[in-house]
């Protein structure tokens, strides 16, 4: 089980002939993902690791009927690729691309509101349901089947936590990287709602960062959840006014410090981990 993806998910890769796109096709195939097609305009008719390439999403939809797509195109084309998948009514769109302009994302988000699609990302590592399917760029070997759901704004930090959980014998139902940009398609709360309904998931780890109020915005929902949530927020040591790598990770005058977020979680009675190791200990206690 897990959320959003499983063995039956038919994945289309937008930007399949690029360096990163083609590399990740192979990785996903090795994981067991059902990659049914790819898109690169002008390269229709070719193949990448046995996967048919099409000129357009509509062309791919006609032939191979994908129900999810993952986007590896450069930032200036990312919004258009998302629009293309939305218009083809692809249900799940995962945008890995980092550096998509915010004005593009505002338009994309408004367009999504009246659509049948969900967007994960951009600037995210994608999502993995161990034993079922992986969409994105998370390293294959770290995952392990189990009952912990993970939702995170980070990339490599997420890998580290998944890795530690797995090595401690704690498997994951699904791990979702929602992306490190200020404007993203799917929020913590959206994913938490899915975990709450997923019978496979027994507890959730939420990994946040400085910047914005995405973490605080999820608190009201977490309080209503039956399942336990363990939160972790990085950037306690971040100075104000500086972007810490992720476009969204900045402590501005309006707030967004890690301590504010940690205090908000604690005030709401939500367990907060102090380090990846501490999270693993706390998850063990709960399960």
């Amino acid at each position: 089980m897990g959320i959003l993806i499983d063995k039956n998910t038919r994945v289309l890769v937008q930007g399949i002939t690029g360096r990163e796109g083609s590399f990740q096709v192979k990785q996903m195939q090795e994981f067991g993902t059902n990659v049914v097609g790819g898109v690169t305009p002008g390269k229709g008719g070719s193949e990448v690791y046995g996967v048919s390439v099409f000129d357009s999403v509509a062309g791919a939809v006609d032939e191979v009927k994908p129900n999810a797509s993952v986007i590896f195109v450069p930032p200036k084309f990312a919004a258009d690729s998302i629009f293309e998948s939305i218009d083809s009514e692809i249900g799940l769109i995962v945008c890995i691309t980092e550096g998509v302009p915010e004005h593009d994302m505002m338009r994309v988000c408004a367009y999504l509101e009246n659509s049948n699609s969900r967007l994960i990302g951009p600037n995210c590592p994608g999502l993995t349901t161990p034993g079922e399917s992986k969409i994105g760029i998370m390293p294959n070997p770290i995952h392990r089947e189990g009952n912990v759901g993970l939702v995170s704004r980070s990339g490599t930090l997420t890998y580290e936590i998944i890795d530690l959980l797995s090595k401690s014998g704690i498997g994951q139902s699904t791990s979702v990287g929602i992306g490190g940009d200020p404007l993203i398609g799917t929020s913590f709360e959206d994913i938490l709602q899915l975990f709450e309904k997923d019978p496979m998931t027994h507890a959730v780890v939420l990994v946040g960062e400085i910047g914005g109020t995405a973490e605080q915005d999820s608190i009201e929902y977490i309080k209503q959840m039956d399942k336990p949530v363990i939160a972790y927020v990085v950037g306690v040591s971040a100075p104000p006014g500086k972007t810490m790598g992720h476009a969204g990770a900045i402590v501005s005058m309006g707030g967004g410090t890690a301590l504010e977020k940690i205090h908000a979680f604690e005030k709401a009675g939500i367990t907060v981990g102090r380090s990846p190791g501490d999270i693993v200990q706390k998850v063990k206690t709960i399960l």
Partner: protein
Amino acid sequence: MMLYEHAAKEIFSRYSIPVPEGSLTTRADDAGAIAKKLGSVVVKAQVTAGGRGKAGGILTAATPDEAVRDAQRILGMSIKGLPVKKVLVEEYKKPDKEMYLGITIDRKARRPIIMASTEGGVDIEETARSTPEKIFRVHINPLAGLHEYQAREVAYFLGRESSAQIIDVVKKLYRVFTNNDCTLAEINPLAQTGGAIIALDAKMIIDDNALFRQQVEEEEEDTLSGLAKKHGMSYVALEGDIGCIINGAGLAMATLDMIKQYGGEPANFMDVRAGASEEQVKTALRIVSSNKNVKTILINIFGGLTKCDEVARAIIDVSPEIKVPFVVRLAGTNEKEGRAMLERLGITFASSTEEAARKVIELGHTYR
């Protein structure tokens, strides 16, 4: 990227938003000539930092001589660490009324928001805290764009006297905001002076991710941050002595947090990004080690796209140049190969971020 006031005002002019007449100069003498033409002037330091007024970077001059003196005083001063190289000399306009008008992105609502206040010339964040009822907010649907009625609501809130002119400015500022990929387009103060509406200040921040489609000159930053950015990485200088190189922003922040938890002080934030190449890691090592405060270096890589053997090669290549000891943590793609390559160098290894943080601090103590 924040534009200089003069650059923002040039863009405003192109969209026919009224701004005071004025000229830019790097020489104090020119200020006199400009003032001769314009009469009473304001001499304004051109730096991309707030609080110029309080720092003495904005002075008024009634005569050309005063303008020269003001320009001399301002040119060469530093505001929040930024040297003032240029001044804008502008016609002085006495405002009868100062208002605030700004458009930014409401990240939570995921759409543009227009903010207007009858209290202009002061910090909007301060107004938001102390007298929120003095701020009018309206969200814009980014697909439909600004509706006429919304511009009118903003103008009526600011006062009916000049509503037609303000409606016009609101519509033009929204076009500035969208056409230039702004994350902020702000007029503070928007002044009413003798029946006319004029933008006395101009602030524009352009989304760095959209610079590829915007015609703005990017000034190269002559700093380690600038150097890192040029190579597709992100560097932030900090106060401590532990140099840090990590792939991924979240992991980097987590690593720094842990160093602090264990009593250490990071010298920097350095995110070499998820797909860092051998060349990038080399550059990162050179940047981080060029900081004289650095006593030890922690390299923390969780390979996904980044391959641990490439990182190892970069370390082997650059390490002869570097005089301080390392702690290296390598995990993920090609982890074994990378470790094997480095073992010969006698480098301290760690198997998790926490262990790496602990070990780099110990290492610092040992070498002190």
